[in-house]
């Protein structure tokens, strides 16, 4: 009989905090995260990626906000796996990912990826890898709410 129950695998890094956060990610939170790392004196470089909701034009109508939903437990596990892979592939000191759920308005931040290492070479590639993997693998969906009240389901493409 096929065993299809989800089994946990051993981790390189321990799960720190939940990635999924209700509502937009505040710029003050980003600043605070930077400040919280200043005691980690072996860090020489940070790369920060912020995904901001953009006012795309769809059939002449503007996006005003995105409402994010997620298969939360699976998404948290997938974020954890991506984190593990990044630590295995790149020589990183620290890494944090935060993703919004619920409504995020145009101009607000819905994704915050924060990668730290001793030297800069690692952080650029690691951050890029993490963001690409998030867009491909994490079960999160977005309803793009348009300025006439209608909506369209967001689709990820290699460039967005």
């Amino acid at each position, binding site marked *: *009989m*096929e065993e*299809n*129950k*989800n089994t946990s695998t051993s981790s390189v890094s321990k799960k720190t905090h939940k990635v999924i956060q209700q509502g937009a990610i505040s710029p003050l939170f980003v600043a605070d995260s930077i400040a919280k790392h200043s005691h980690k004196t072996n860090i020489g470089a940070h790369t920060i990626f912020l*995904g901001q909701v953009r006012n795309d034009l769809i059939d002449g109508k503007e996006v005003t906000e995105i409402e*994010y*939903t*997620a*298969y939360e*437990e*699976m*998404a948290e*596990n997938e974020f954890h796996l991506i984190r593990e892979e990044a630590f295995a592939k790149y020589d990183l000191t620290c890494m944090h990912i935060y*993703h919004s759920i619920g409504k995020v308005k145009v101009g607000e931040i819905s*994704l915050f990826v924060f990668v730290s290492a001793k030297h800069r070479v690692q952080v650029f590639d690691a951050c890029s890898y993490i*963001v690409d993997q*998030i*867009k*491909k*693998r*994490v*079960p*999160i*969906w*977005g*309803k793009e709410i348009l300025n006439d009240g209608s909506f369209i*389901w*967001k*689709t*990820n493409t290699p460039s967005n």
Partner: protein
Amino acid sequence: MMKISVLLFGNLAQITGTNKIELEEYTTIEEVKDYLFDKFPTFKTHVFVIAVNQKITKENLTLQNSDEIALLPPFAGG
């Protein structure tokens, strides 16, 4: 008694007006799909992958009691 839950997300949840369906009589993925396509014919024109207990699978798995199936439209995170 076999009891499984089917979770719906994204546009699939929106068109059905529900995000969870509990089923009792079906024992394979194909049987569940047939039931869903019959109940919601528009699903046939929608792209989605199936996860069983949070693992994406293309196989026609035999289900066990309390299994959680999810229909996942294309992801749009980030």
